């Protein structure tokens, strides 16, 4: 059991909490834009866990294990690409339909639903 | 000598921190958007400037000192344009709101 006052552990736990918050936003929020932001929070939490692991691995004159640090940089790039693609698709969906959610348009005039 | 330098740093950084506090207080207390903006950008920039001045004697090399100065210069530039931009939007919005 490592001490919580250790910065690596503290930020690792922060990462765990961010993963939870991000996941909740992604699952529950109806707006697509907010979900995309939620993915970014979720990603930030994962990267912080990588960061905690890297910080713990300090040694050989380095203040952290460089391998997970490099992975985080690659991960940030990939997450940004994902955000850009999602945003472009959202914008196109809005241009075509005028909505920014994945819910089908309001259930007006669906046969049989009136009764 | 070190004692003098340290005292200078403590003084400058301390008063810089006070300016940051003042900026936030202004933000919390002032009634309207424009005066809040004013309080924020003026006070925070002064605070940053004082901190940079306080840290300059501790710079390990000329280039490090130069970078410190650059940070402050950029802060000036960004604060000036950003507050103008925000103020511009705030003015446009006011009749509507």
């Amino acid at each position, binding site marked *: 059991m490592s001490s919580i006052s250790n910065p690596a552990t503290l930020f690792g736990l922060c990462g765990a909490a961010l993963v939870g918050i991000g996941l909740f936003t992604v699952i529950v929020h109806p707006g697509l834009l907010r979900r995309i932001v939620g993915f970014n929070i979720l990603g930030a939490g994962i990267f912080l866990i990588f960061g905690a692991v890297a910080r713990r691995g300090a040694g050989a004159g380095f203040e952290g*294990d460089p391998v997970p640090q490099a992975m985080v940089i690659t991960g940030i790039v990939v997450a940004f690409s994902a955000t850009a693609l999602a945003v472009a698709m959202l914008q196109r969906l809005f241009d075509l339909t005028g909505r920014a*959610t994945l819910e089908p348009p309001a259930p007006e005039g669906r046969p049989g639903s009136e009764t | 000598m070190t004692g003098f330098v340290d005292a200078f740093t403590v003084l400058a950084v301390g008063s810089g921190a006070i300016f940051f506090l003042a900026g936030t207080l202004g933000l919390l207390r002032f009634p309207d958007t424009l005066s809040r903006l004013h309080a924020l950008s003026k006070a925070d920039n002064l605070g940053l400037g004082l901190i940079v001045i306080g840290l300059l004697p501790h710079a390990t090399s000329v280039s490090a000192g130069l970078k410190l100065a650059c940070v402050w210069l950029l802060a000036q530039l960004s604060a000036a344009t950003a507050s103008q931009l925000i103020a511009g939007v705030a003015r446009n919005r006011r009749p509507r709101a």
Partner: protein
Amino acid sequence: MNALLDVVLVAGLLALALHVARARDDQGAIVGFIAFGFLLGLGWVRLASIDVALTEAAIGGGVTGLLLLRVEAHTRDSSAPDRTARPITIAAAAVLCIAVTAGLAFVILNLPSPPPTQAPAAAAALDATGLENPVTAVLLAYRALDTLLEKVVLILALVGVWSLAPDHLWGGAPELRPAVVPEPLSYLARVLPPFGVLIAVYMFWVGADAPGGTFQAGTILAAMWLLVMLAGLRAAPDTRRVTLRLLLIVGPAVFLAVGFLGFAMAGGFLAYPAGAAKPIILGIEAALTLSIAVTLGMLVSGPSKRAPTS
């Protein structure tokens, strides 16, 4: 004192994340997210990962913010009312998320001690690369294949974004400039880029031996280019222009070419000849910086909005 700083930072991060999750409107959430990105940069400083701090500040606080704010402004008047999830769904999701967080916390608190690490291996191999920044060595030597694939990912995302243009506009230019450019913005777009380019070149140059490197430099260049396009000082280029396409692929192409040359000169794909590793890596980085800048800039600009000029 340091522990207090960490606690304040973590509290701020969590509060901002909750604000993002619960804010009523998207704009508030996005501004909260940009602030979150800045604060996260501070967190990475505390984790002694300056390379990541630079990347996070540039991407999370900068370019992602612009991307999200643009689409928020564009879709602000979306017609469909936001239907909130049913309480049972919310409760189930909450239980799930708390369980995940608890599981993660359990693992993090019980990570093995002494921690396993590749730091000694990375340090031992550093001499062969001639670099002094171990993160750059991981990215461009030890695990160069990952980096190469990641560059293909970036380009592919751009292909995907471009494919969303309407048929008749495909190959044309995206549009960033608003109908009215406020005066301070065009002032900023004239004054800031020289600073930015200088900082980017510096960031690239120190990257071999100190924190910084190709991705951070490329992101700054992209931000400056975007600023110029936003202020309307330069129009965005047609997406089918050959110069643009060349700039896009020059980085990955040089990377690949060096990889294949490794077969002939160093006995394997992506192997560097002994003694010449550092200049070769710097060459790859220079090309990559350009390509990253152009790719990120075009990714944020989005699909084409104007018909191609011919």
